[in-house]
């Protein structure tokens, strides 16, 4: 990749800012939460001491929870802004909304892994990127709601039976384990560690992708840009 190669915008400043918030708050909440969940393990006891014991970890966990609530709020405002500004339906054209083609893409991608067919061509958002995105929605909803019950048990049991706290514990802890297990392995591999991207894909921080990468990773988006010079001009990094 030479310095003069053409680059295109993929993520705007808002996307990158939100991702930093997601990343930092996830790391803090996951570390403090897992140190409690696996409290008998030696690494957990060490991590707990570094965070200032149980009160320090609880504070960190809840600060991260507030950051998560904050970025959710910002994101919902952004969705409204995005839909208002966008030309055309969000169900057509490049969009995060899942569509039947995603299932076909998944199947063809798996067949490609097994050497049965060439690599499928992807649009602006691939099926695994959409899964990542909606997994955060699901996770924040499940972990956030159960977390509120655990944070304010006295208030929650004014409206709910006491066993709701037990259910919230199971939800919070199992969903968090799923999130950590998914992000640390699957998300890290899909975005950074796979052979095409290794060792790191900086586009989440710079917002830019090279022409070469755009052609390879998002061929259908590239084709659509070829047909619409205005779109191309708008996306090109000047």
């Amino acid at each position, binding site marked *: 990749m030479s310095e003069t190669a053409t680059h295109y915008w993929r993520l705007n400043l808002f996307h990158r800012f939100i991702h930093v918030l997601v990343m930092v708050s996830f790391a803090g909440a996951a570390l403090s939460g897992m*140190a*409690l*969940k*696996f*409290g*008998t*393990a*030696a*690494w*957990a*006891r060490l991590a*707990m001491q570094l965070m200032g*014991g*149980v*009160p320090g970890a609880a504070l960190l966990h809840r600060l991260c929870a507030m950051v998560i609530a904050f970025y959710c709020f910002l994101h919902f405002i952004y969705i409204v802004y995005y839909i208002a500004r966008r030309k055309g339906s969000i169900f057509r054209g490049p969009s995060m909304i899942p569509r039947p083609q995603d299932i076909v893409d998944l199947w063809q991608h*798996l067949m*490609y*892994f*097994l*050497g049965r067919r060439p690599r499928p061509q992807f649009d602006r958002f691939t099926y*695994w990127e959409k899964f990542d995105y909606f997994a955060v929605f699901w996770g924040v909803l499940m972990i956030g709601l159960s977390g509120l019950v*655990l944070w304010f*048990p*006295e*208030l929650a*049991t*004014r409206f*709910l*039976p*006491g*066993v*709701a*706290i*037990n*259910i919230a*514990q*199971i*939800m919070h802890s*199992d*969903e968090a*384990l*799923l999130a950590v*297990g*998914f992000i*640390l*392995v*699957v998300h*890290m*591999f*899909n975005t950074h*560690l*796979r*052979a*095409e991207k*290794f*060792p790191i894909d900086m586009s989440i921080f710079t917002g830019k992708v090279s022409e070469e990468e755009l052609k390879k990773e998002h061929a259908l988006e590239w084709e659509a840009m070829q047909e619409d010079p205005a779109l191309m001009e708008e996306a090109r990094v000047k």
Partner: protein
Amino acid sequence: MKRPALVWCLTTAVVIVAAAMVLMTRCGQPISGRPSQEREFGSWYVEVQRYNQGVHGGMDCSLCHTGIDSDEHPDPENLSESATDVFDFQACASCHPQEYEYYHRGVHAEVLSGTVQSEIEYPAPTCGHCHDPHYRQVLSRLQVIDAQVDICGQCHPSELETYLENYHGKTAVDLDHADSASCADCHGSHQVVALDQPEIAVQVCRKCHPDATENMVGYLIHAEETLSPDADASHARESVLLFLVQLFFVVLTVSVLVFFYGHTFLWLLRGLHEKLRRR
């Protein structure tokens, strides 16, 4: 090192570290974070030097062992029994009348007198089953928590297990958080209560959670997730409900992770293959 090899090593390392962290948390871990102190309940042997360092140290033996004449040896037949079971702990009442009285209001005393039936195989404890009269030291709060976990857990193992799974137990026992509640903070130490009446239990919750309502008492500290609870167990319905909730989330977690870990693994192999073929 070439890139594919690096990818391979790094990914393998991440997977191994993640797997090891999960395994470490389940296998070979002691039940509590700190090593439990040696307890020598029931022994007839008294170590005088250690006795003198304990809280009762310096007190004359006959203050407590009132029935014993100096030249009369205890019946050797008795030595096969636990000294704790043989000793009459009414002697404690002369210095600790309040504790003695409270004990008699509690459920352990009721089991002992036969007014309440217990399913636990051990006889109900009296003073000496929990308090070591000869070597008892002044304990820190965390040591008291450990002592409760050890002593209460001997007769109530399933309650101990569920307590250690609960946030109160995790923070108090595993993570040295002295402000968390342990056994006696809720159930009382001398006047031991089972807390099966919501109006009494809510008073206990309010010691730390002043805004607790009677609804909050429905929260099971000693929650058991099982599909086949004892039909007459007090929380049979909740146990089944919690089992089903747990099952749903375990199936969800396992299926998502198995599918995507497989996806990742196949992608990794394909990526390595493409890289190696080109060289």
